[in-house]
């Protein structure tokens, strides 16, 4: 028995030796690990790439470019022409399939084909067309157009769908402006059908651009096509719901880490990823649920897991999961994109993309890494550890970015369509296009118009990001509507007190009065230049025109009968410097929802909050003049001009829609006009019809904006020692208290 034991040991030893050599053999080439270990001890890691010390040749000889250049005889112009003729179809790019000359003549204009009788158009496509027609890009003249949009419904190209339009091929070919699709944009949400769901549209799109949902990188032509999100029939036309994030919580973790609830495809394309999800499901914080119960004959294909999966699926409520999860899985369905994507985005649930080869929506301009986790279907099993490794700070940032992107580009069909058009416009105008920063930071590309300036520092939104400050002076713009007859008129007093402000750079008097301009000597002598501009058509909107004479970032907007002291002007300006993207002013007003009349109401009563400051005495960034003039539709501006009223309400709507924040009221002062002084403010305004006008305006504006952008505030900003019981001599803005 002793011997037996010994042999036993011997044999084991032998086995071990074999094993040892085996492992040793594996280890030998990996001695790099040892090297790195040694480098921690201050030992310089040896250089596996020997930094060769011989005199080596340069890769580029000094005269190579020259000699090459003199050897080519083909003219660069010809070369360009060759490119444009070669790269067609799948290889279309703006350079080869788009006619820029059509856009050069008149900005970026979009033509929509007239709708033909008997053609049925889905509601979604009808929405798209009416949005384009209501936009500032729209033209009815095809000769002016840079871009053409079909009135034939191309949204659903699934031939099994009831919305499918037949004979599209011939219908398109018969359009006399078709021009083989050149400068055309085709919207599409669904293409291909069961079982392979190819991305074929079923007709020849020629040189047309695609704005397509679920588009794959394979067919996507960079900087030519636009990837749009898949949206449902119920997606709101304008406005749209805000994101669900009401406040930030820290730490940012929610009940679930990662969730998904959706169909599982038992056969065919796109089934692999969802079939594998159950591996990762842990019933606790990673809840990934699938159901087989969909389609007519699911029972026929069902597999062993179906019953169990279906039971688990029914246990959880989708909305509850959506709102209580940090991450939401967005795996591919039959097609690459799914509704889950927008749902997660709106719910501030950071999307975890699991859809290899999907060109993400608006990928040309959106940096999705800041709002989503781009996973790889091949690495599904790593997803839980990946999302767990993401730091809290990053989650907080991702989550906020989902909300920004949702509200900036996705919350309504209008935003999706306008974003698509703006992307194409950026390509066409090239120099006047948005930088990545403008698209990816608040307030987003739809509100930051590059035609205003190429310089980020000229906008009110990027001071903090760039680490700069606005120009420390303002331009006063006084809106004059009555003739100058006496030297005691309020406008002259106003002029003097504003000019005395240390921050005043210049004063512009906008002469919107039918009487001719008064002689130069009638204006008081001031230390700052006074420029008198005759208003264009003498309409209300002209007070917000982006006059080139305004050289400062800040504009102090004034009515001619405004009463303001120099101290008040100075103080308001110092406050504005801290809030350069907002309206800062004196007279505040409020809106409210009148539930009896089911409409918005306007009030000038003294209330505990406000949502507007009137532009009769307000400071704001000059960019808003540009935005007012170029962003708002002619219908709203026309209404303002016709009523000669409401321009201040419209400006408040605009600024709040951009900033999502209320304006800022400064100090106690409530009345700001000579005519109002001495009135009891609690009484309804002196002119009832004017007040009714303003109600009407509010409701009209709210309907155009697709919601009420105004935000209430309960805060007013006073000078630091305001009405404090200290000597008045210690107060910098002491005059404010005397009023």
């Amino acid at each position: 028995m002793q011997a037996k034991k010994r042999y036993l040991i011997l044999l084991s030893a032998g086995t071990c030796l074999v094993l040892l050599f085996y492992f040793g053999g594996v280890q030998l080439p990996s001695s790099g690990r040892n090297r790195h270990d040694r480098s921690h001890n201050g030992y310089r890691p040896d250089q596996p790439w020997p930094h060769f010390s011989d005199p080596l040749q340069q890769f580029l000889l000094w005269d190579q470019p020259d000699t090459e250049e003199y050897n080519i005889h083909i003219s660069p112009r010809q070369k360009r022409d060759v490119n444009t003729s070669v790269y067609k179809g799948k290889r279309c790019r703006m350079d080869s399939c788009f006619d820029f000359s059509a856009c050069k003549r008149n900005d970026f204009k979009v033509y929509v084909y007239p709708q033909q009788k008997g053609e049925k158009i889905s509601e979604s496509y009808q929405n798209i067309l009416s949005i384009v027609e209501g936009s500032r890009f729209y033209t009815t003249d095809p000769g002016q157009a840079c871009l053409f949009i079909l009135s034939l419904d191309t949204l659903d190209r699934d031939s099994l769908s009831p919305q499918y339009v037949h004979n599209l091929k011939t219908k398109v070919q018969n359009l006399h402006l078709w021009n083989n699709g050149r400068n055309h944009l085709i919207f599409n949400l669904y293409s291909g059908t069961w079982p392979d769901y190819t991305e074929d549209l079923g007709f020849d799109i020629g040189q047309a651009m695609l704005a397509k949902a679920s588009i794959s990188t394979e067919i996507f032509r960079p900087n030519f096509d636009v990837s749009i999100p898949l949206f449902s029939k119920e997606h709101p036309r304008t406005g749209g719901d805000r994101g669900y994030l009401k406040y930030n919580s820290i730490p940012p973790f929610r009940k679930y880490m990662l969730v998904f609830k959706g169909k599982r495809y038992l056969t065919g394309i796109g089934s692999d990823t969802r079939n594998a999800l159950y591996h990762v499901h842990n019933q606790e914080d990673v809840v990934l649920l699938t159901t087989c119960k969909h389609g007519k004959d699911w029972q026929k294909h069902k597999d062993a897991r179906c019953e169990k999966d279906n039971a688990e699926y029914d246990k959880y409520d989708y909305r509850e999961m959506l709102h209580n999860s940090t991450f939401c899985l967005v795996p591919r369905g039959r097609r690459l994109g799914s509704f889950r994507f927008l749902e997660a985005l709106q719910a501030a649930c950071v999307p975890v993309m699991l859809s290899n080869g999907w060109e993400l929506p608006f990928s040309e301009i959106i940096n999705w890494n800041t709002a989503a986790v781009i996973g790889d279907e091949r690495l599904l099993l790593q997803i839980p550890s990946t999302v767990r490794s993401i730091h809290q700070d990053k989650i907080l940032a991702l989550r906020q970015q989902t909300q920004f992107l949702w509200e900036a580009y996705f919350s309504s069909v209008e935003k999706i369509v306008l974003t698509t058009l703006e992307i194409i416009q950026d390509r066409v105008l090239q120099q006047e296009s948005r930088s990545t920063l403008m698209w990816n930071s608040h307030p987003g590309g739809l509100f930051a118009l590059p035609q205003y300036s190429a310089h980020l520092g000229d906008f009110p939104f990027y001071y903090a990001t760039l680490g700069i400050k606005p120009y420390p002076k303002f331009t006063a713009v006084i809106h004059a509507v009555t003739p100058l007859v006496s030297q005691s008129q309020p406008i002259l007093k106003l002029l003097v007190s504003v000019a005395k402000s240390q921050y005043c750079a210049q004063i512009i008097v906008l002469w919107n009065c039918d009487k001719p301009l008064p002689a130069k000597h009638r204006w008081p002598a001031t230390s700052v230049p006074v420029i008198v501009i005759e208003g264009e058509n003498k309409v209300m909107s002209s007070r917000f025109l982006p006059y080139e004479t305004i050289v400062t970032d800040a504009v102090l907007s004034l009515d001619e009968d405004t009463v303001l002291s120099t101290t008040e002007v100075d103080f308001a300006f110092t406050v504005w410097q801290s809030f350069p993207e907002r309206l800062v002013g004196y007279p505040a007003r409020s809106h409210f929802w009148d539930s009896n009349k089911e409409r918005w109401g306007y009030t000038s009563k003294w209330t505990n909050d406000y949502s507007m400051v009137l532009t009769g005495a307000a400071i704001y960034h000059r960019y808003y003049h540009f935005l007012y003039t170029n962003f708002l539709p002619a219908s709203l501006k026309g209404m303002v001009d016709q009523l000669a009223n409401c321009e201040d309400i419209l400006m408040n709507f605009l600024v709040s829609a951009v900033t999502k924040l209320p304006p800022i009221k400064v100090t106690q002062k409530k009345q700001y006009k000579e005519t109002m002084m001495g009135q009891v403010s609690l009484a309804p305004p002196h002119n009832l019809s004017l007040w009714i006008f303003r109600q009407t305006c509010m409701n009209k504006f709210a309907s155009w904006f697709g919601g009420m952008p105004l935000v209430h505030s309960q805060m007013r900003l006073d000078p630091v020692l305001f009405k404090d019981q200290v000597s008045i001599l210690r107060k910098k803005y002491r005059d404010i208290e005397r009023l």
Partner: protein
Amino acid sequence: MVRLSMCASGKYSSRGPALIPRMKTKHRIYYITLFSVVLLGLIATGMFQFWPHSIESTADWGLDRRSVHDAPLIRLPVANPIPERGDLSCRMHTCFDVYRCGYNPKNRIKVYIYPLQRFVDEVGVPISSTGLSREYNDLLSAISDSEFYTDDVTRACLFVPSIDVLNQNSLRIRETAQALAMLPRWDKGMNHLLFNMLPGGPPDYNTALDVPRDRALLAGGGFSTWTYRQGYDVSIPVYSPLSADVELPERQPGPRRYFILSSQTAIHREYRAELERLKEENGEALLLLDKCSNLSQGVASARKRCYKGQVFDYPQILQESSFCVVLRGARLGQATLSDVLQAGCVPVILADSYILPFSEVLDWKRASVVIPEEKLPEMYTILKSIPHRQVEEMQRQARWFWDAYFSSMKAIGMTTLQIINDRIYPYAARTYEQWNNPPLVKWSSVNSPLFLPLIPPRSPGFTAVVLTYDRIESLFRVITEISKVPSLAKLLVVWNNQNKSPPEGEKKFKCPECTAIDGLSLDQTHMVERSECINKFASVFGTMPLKVVEHRADPVLYKDDFPEKLKSFPNIGSL
């Protein structure tokens, strides 16, 4: 040894007995000998594990002095396979094996460099006329010194061949392709990265390397939109050899002597004619330089430019202009771009369909002006319309791009690897700000972690945190007052006194100094102490982060002549 005993016992207890054959005693000697041999072998292996480092490192010291001529010579048989031309539809999820990169806590890819070999054809002619270039050697050295490097081929995620393909001109296309295919881990080019700066050749000058390369990733200079596989290839700059030779100190942004400068010597005559027309129209604002006819070829001529007999130093002259023209030549990518950026001159790029270097991460709109070639005659008008402040930002940005991403082969190589790294670990990718903000902006910019404009509802309320030492009376007063607030969700008292335990229930303490707290009557030493704190903190921060404002927030109806009971916050200011 530990391993041995563990193994042995494991075997013994589990499967050992069943495996033992019956043996005769005469075989005992034989087994004892075997055991000894095994033991000796074990010892030797053990020695080997501890010994070899010194051997290895001396070998490596030798390596450092090694010359390229010592690299092994590989003869390529004519019949060797040639890779396929390169698939235009390749994307990371189709042509890249992500399993090789794995999950790792540092989120960093591992890059392996093949050892240098000298490839020759059957008759002994090298596949490249230059062999390893100085620049490619710099690039590979930089990679091997970097955190990306691994010398363990089995753990590598990305493979970089040591075959230099920077300049297609010096290559024999077919043989180079064969050499690539011979690489031991080539596997259809999967996860291989090639660096090429000068693609194509006469007469048509393709915009991507003509060497067939299967699925290999290409870091190429001079891609056009038709050859660049977005999200797969990396567009890199054409390195300017002058970068290493010339030091141009950074100049303050601002107006320059010339408005537009054209310094390229090899401009097609059609374009030169157009530039000359522009010069006629706008005179002094334009400086149109060409090669100096009296200088012979070579470094000296590369450093001079002439205009009508007037000689200028290049690249220094670039610093004298606000804008510098970078026109396409036979190729789209131009080394001039690098010189121009180094000089802090805003590049005006005229190269239709060109994919700008590192455009995947760099925001070129903030550093350059891109004008379609056919708009060259309008260049002056276009540039004039750009606001001065924008020009200054672009000048600063241009120089920053050069410093960070163009200045050396190392910078170019590291940027390329980082871009690929960002694709593989997108959730750990560098941000737009990290890529694009120059240090000055990074330093001065304020990016709030709570950047979304949100006005939170009242419903979650707030948590009050009260810090106390031993002034119980004042603490209780605070608690009583604050607990009246409807929005209070939680009250947290931080007892900051090691010597006393917090009071249980209600205890009364005398607190004479409590009432004396008033903004004006604080004693002097307190202020001095706090000033010292502020100075200390500011010096640690390197700047004073506090900002002075002159306003404070009050309720809308604060101190208004208005019935107090109608005010939301009637008591403010009453204390």
